């Protein structure tokens, strides 16, 4: 883990050796640790530290990248020369964009000391807190916790410099009944591990496992569903990942317009749908530089600042994301692709949404989601680990899992109600009540 000053010193050193027209440097590193368990017993655990430096040299429109994980002066200089050699031999990239000059980055709060302090004992305790209550109730736990603490720094020969440090923890738990007839799931992700209780999350999964045992079969068809955030998050993430402007302009996106152009400015969703990204959000802080990135927000970043962006406002498509080349060609601002998305919701809890439902199905999780038709964003997948029938405002009985075929665009038009957003899978998503959600077949899977 390097400080801002230490990272800047290495980047400046690299740039002092550079002879190419333009040179960019990315330095990132940190520690990741994990613990995995199944059948109420720890199966693997590990920890690794890594730091690596990547140098990109550019001559005209030819670029080359070399990477290294040694940081003495001789190694740095050698790597600069190697990047320059690779660049000279590379074919020209007609879409190459000159590097950015100095940028102003937001000071986002992605780092928590509590997470940086995680050690093997912490992980063992987190696993024990999850396994022990399951053992006591004759249930079987399988779970995984992964934590990361690291930094990312970028710089270039035009004076750009950025530094960010971040921490993160992801935890997921599947609890199954001893007879294999019930299964429950919960997942949490936080920057600050003091906000994580593996015990509390496991209790949710235990309750779902016990309640989902001996599910009944319902006919497939169109149902009102309540999607918990762990169920809807991947569909929404896939939709946001399809908002590339170039694909839309080229006619190969759900945002392409018949006869050419894009559907920017059109109302495609229910007016209660509002989706933004905001690196400064206290619940979901993001790396201040955009344009792609690896685990610590570095990697593929081209140095563009991440700012607050409204993607969908009152159901209207307000923004799409651009490569710098395509934005330049179109003469628009080059908004980088979104990180964690924030979908606005209401004040109702999940329990409130259930209470207000005459007939419907509560979905804990959707699984094995794959694109069926990119034109309509039709996806298929299955419910999993806790699917329940609701009648007259109450959960009546567990139901067998369904396969769905549905588009998030159609789903966000069939909106009935939104609850209070919670963090799920690196996003902030409200529980949603949706009518006419399409289930096409039944599954015996538990």
């Amino acid at each position, binding site marked *: 883990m390097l400080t801002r000053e230490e990272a800047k010193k290495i980047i400046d050193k690299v740039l002092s050796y550079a002879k190419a027209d333009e040179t960019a440097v990315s330095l990132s590193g940190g520690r990741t640790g994990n613990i995995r368990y*199944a*059948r*109420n*017993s*720890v199966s693997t655990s*590990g920890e*690794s530290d890594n730091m*690596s430096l*990547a140098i*990109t040299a*550019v001559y005209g429109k030819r*670029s080359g990248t070399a*990477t290294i*994980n040694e940081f003495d002066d001789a190694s740095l200089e050698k790597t600069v020369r190697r990047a320059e050699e*690779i660049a000279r031999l*590379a074919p020209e*990239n007609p*879409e190459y964009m000159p590097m950015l000059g100095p940028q102003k980055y937001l000071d986002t709060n992605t780092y928590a000391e509590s997470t940086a302090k995680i050690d*093997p004992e912490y992980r*063992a305790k987190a696993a*024990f807190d999850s396994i022990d209550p399951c053992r006591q109730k004759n249930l*079987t736990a*399988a779970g995984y916790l*992964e934590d990361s603490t690291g930094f990312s720094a*970028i710089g270039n020969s035009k004076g750009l410099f950025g530094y960010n440090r971040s921490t993160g923890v992801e935890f997921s738990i599947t609890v*199954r009944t001893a007879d294999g007839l019930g299964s429950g799931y919960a997942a949490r992700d936080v920057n600050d591990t003091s906000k994580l209780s593996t015990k509390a999350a496991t209790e949710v999964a235990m309750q779902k496992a016990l309640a989902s045992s001996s599910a009944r079969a319902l006919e497939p068809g169109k149902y009102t569903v309540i999607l918990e955030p762990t169920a809807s998050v991947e569909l929404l993430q896939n939709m946001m990942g399809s908002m*590339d402007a170039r694909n839309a302009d*080229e*006619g*190969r996106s*759900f945002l*392409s317009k*018949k006869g050419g152009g894009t559907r920017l400015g059109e109302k495609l969703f229910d007016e209660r749908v509002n989706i933004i990204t905001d690196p400064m959000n206290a619940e979901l802080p993001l790396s201040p530089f955009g344009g*792609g990135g690896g685990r610590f927000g570095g*990697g*593929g*970043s*081209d*140095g563009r600042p991440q700012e607050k962006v409204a993607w969908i406002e009152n159901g209207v498509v307000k923004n799409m994301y651009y*490569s710098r*080349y395509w934005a330049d060609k179109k003469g628009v601002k080059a908004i980088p692709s979104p990180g964690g998305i924030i979908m606005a919701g209401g004040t109702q809890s999940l329990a409130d949404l259930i209470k207000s439902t005459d007939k419907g199905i509560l979905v804990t999780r959707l*699984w*094995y989601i*794959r694109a*069926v*038709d*990119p034109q*309509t*964003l*039709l996806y298929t*997948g*299955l419910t999993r680990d806790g699917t329940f029938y609701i009648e007259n405002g109450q959960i009546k009985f567990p139901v067998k899992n369904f396969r769905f*075929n549905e*588009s998030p665009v*159609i789903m966000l038009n069939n909106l009935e109600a939104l609850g209070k957003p919670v963090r799920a899978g690196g996003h902030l998503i409200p529980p949603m009540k949706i009518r006419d959600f399409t289930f*096409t*077949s039944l599954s*015996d*899977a*538990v």
Partner: protein
Amino acid sequence: MNRRDFTNILGMGTAGLMLPSLPAFSRTVAPEALLETGVDVATKKRLADAAMNAAKSRGATYTDVRIGRYLNQFVVTREDKVQNIVNTESYGVGVRVIADGCWGFAAVVDARSEADTAKAAEKAVAIAKANARLMKEPVQLAPQKGYGEVSWKAPITKNAFEVPIKEKVDLLMEVNGAALKNGANYVNSVLFMVNEQKYFASTDGTYADQDIHRMWPLFTVTAIDPKTGKFETRQSLSAPMGMGYEYLQANPSDKITGITTRYNKGYDMLEDVTAAAKQARAKHAAKSVEAGKYDLVLDPSHLWLTIHESVGHPLELDRVLGYEANFAGTSFATLDKWKSKNFNYGSKLVNLVADKTQVGSLGAVGYDDEGVKCKQWDLVKDGTLVNYQAIRDQVHIIGENESQGCCYADSWSSVQFQRMANVSLAAGKTPLSVQQMIKDVKKGIYIIGDGSFSIDQQRYNFQFGGQLFYEIKNGEIAGMLKDVAYQSNTQEFWNSCAAVCDEKDYRLGGSFFDGKGQPPQSSAVSHGSSTTRFNGVNVINTARKI
């Protein structure tokens, strides 16, 4: 490399440039570096012995050492532009031990000295001892004889890294040009080449040096209809193969002609992209399928993925036992079904075989990642479930006393675990051609190429799409269909298997990115079959309006 890292590399050209998000511990290198020889065998043996001695002196009862050098090259293009050329190398050593009855693992990047590997071994022992406190029962490792100093090399004839980048770029530019000339608006094409140089040593007395090569040429063409605002795509019908650059040299005997040309052990990329561009264009005029029951005739370029999902995965013993419950899931094929000796996985025609030796396949190696000599074994025989895929610490559970040899780690830095072997459907025993098969079908759909795929966490209910769909009416192909996906249940589907073409039609398909585990690891695996008929399968129409 996993699917996400790969997508990242493909997307880099469009993201503008800066730095690739590479798999952990990889570095980019010049193309020439891919031809340099790595550490020599004598040095590898010394490094391995140092680790094994260090582990033993700290109390390990078993140790294995994997010294790996992993090389990748990608050439990524669209239309008339090279978007990216990436060469990566990763080298390091992973040491796995049993101490106090428990597994421990540690890895070290760029290990050059005996002190480096000894230190990793000591760390692995310390981790094993710490984890032993949480262990329920000690590891039971099936006995394995040592083979001494042995080696295995993939039987390639042309190392892809010896072919100059310029030649590869020229090929892809020609491919892209042909696509645009024949009706495509856009084309993305890629060459993806892999060399794994792996050395395995264990305290059982095996020192195995192996050289594995893989090759995958692929493309997607897109055709847009400005009148309707719709777009259609067609992906390449190539398979990723355990081959060198010779895969791109197609002989006439490698081509299976018919409604469209398909390929066996040689791929004609230019011919396929020409057909693809025309077919993507033709899809606009294709009839939207009427939902209902159809007899399906599935080409090997499609069926491999159905085999992968509905046979390969459910018959992995670690899934059956619950070790993957939190991520990939468990399995419907429980031990009681196997013990009954009469569980009808499929019809009498269904023979499913696991094989780590098949020439040209992605899974073929001489020895697996725990030093077991690779072999072939039956999973489903004449329709009945007879076995699983299991490794050394699992086989006692199914009453076997030796491992089936299907242990794999995707890097020296990952711990090895049970992975899918090549799982294939045996060819039919009586002579039967595709034409003869189609002649018997009254109402059917002929599907070529893999598309969308999804299956539940116990591998019962699945849905598959494809690349090309043709309607069969009264024994004749009646034209192209679109918006097709079929849904079924694994046991019902394999029991509806009504005919399997003979070995002349047998071909491999496969994937570079079979994902499993937390943190996830990727494995490359092939699945062979001949064209196969399944009766009365439920087909849905996937067209929607937004």
